[in-house]
């Protein structure tokens, strides 16, 4: 049994911290914490979030009741108009398989439709077969596989060089 609430006030550090512990072996930990609150809670936030909480009796061994979240922002397509992009969808491992991830994603979809969005987009790694199978079973389609879109990124020195006239 869980409830969802919109991310307001302080950032839910608990779920993200757990994710950082898992991902630390693959990436340097980002200096996200000092910027996350500023970027998410200003007058025009860069992102929005939904948190999944369980009751106190179901809290984790470490005492966390916030056990999952979805982070999203609005995007745009000159073909289709307003869209929503789901940047993160996370549920602590011990709480998976209970419909929490699906509920979070559905809530993002509902909020997106209410805001006039026509698409919900996100990315998934091709080796993450269980996630890909889950999303496909929910009715999405893989644009990269079917249409051929590739994700491109420019950062660091390349971005600085690009910005030179």
């Amino acid at each position, binding site marked *: 049994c869980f409830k969802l609430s919109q991310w307001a006030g302080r950032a839910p550090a608990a779920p993200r911290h757990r994710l950082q512990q898992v991902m630390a072996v693959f990436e340097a930990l980002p200096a996200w914490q000092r910027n996350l609150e500023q970027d998410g809670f200003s007058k025009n936030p*860069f992102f929005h979030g939904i948190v999944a909480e369980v009751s106190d009796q179901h809290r984790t061994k470490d005492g966390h009741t916030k056990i999952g979240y979805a*982070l999203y922002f609005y995007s*745009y397509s000159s073909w289709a108009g307003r869209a929503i992009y789901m940047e993160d969808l996370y549920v602590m491992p011990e709480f998976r398989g209970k419909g929490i991830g699906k509920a979070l994603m*559905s809530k993002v*979809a509902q909020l997106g439709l209410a805001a006039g969005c026509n698409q919900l987009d996100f990315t998934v790694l091709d080796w993450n077969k269980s996630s890909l199978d889950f999303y496909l079973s929910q009715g999405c389609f893989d644009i990269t596989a079917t249409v051929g879109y590739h994700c*491109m*990124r420019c950062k660091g020195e390349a971005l600085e060089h690009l910005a030179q006239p």
Partner: protein
Amino acid sequence: MFTFFCTSFCCPGISCCAIFRKNDDIHLHMCPFGNFSCVRLELQRDGFCQNPFFECLVAEIPEELKSKEGFTVVGYALYFYTYSTWKGRSLYLEDLYVMPEFRGNGIGKGLLCKVAEVFKQCVRLQLSVLNWNTPSRDFYAAKGGQDLTVSEGWHFVRFDGQNLDNLANDAPKI
């Protein structure tokens, strides 16, 4: 040297017109994917409301170089802010378009540079490109773009239409 200048999206009518020209041009070359069409009023509404969904730079040329149809706005870049909980503020370049007869003159590069320059507070610039669009892929690679689908395996996934409605209908009440 081809003279052009980039300005912010200041005149909704002219700029939306440029976007519609892109849609018509690209539709001839792409398999139609979906029956969506973003009508002019939606573009104007969404780009000029209090919290716009996107921003746009347009490339204009002098009157004496205008196209056969009389256009001086010959290209544009449409982008919006995104976010990464790993890296912070980012920018997504949704459209980069130059009318075919004005390509090869550095306008696309100029627009791309302007986008990167104007929003230096962002840590990265992201976009997508079709795998068969070799000229564009080469263009971005030459500018330092990394293909994350090839190098890391990232795939774009989408819910739309009835599938999006079905997903939303399953949402619990908050």
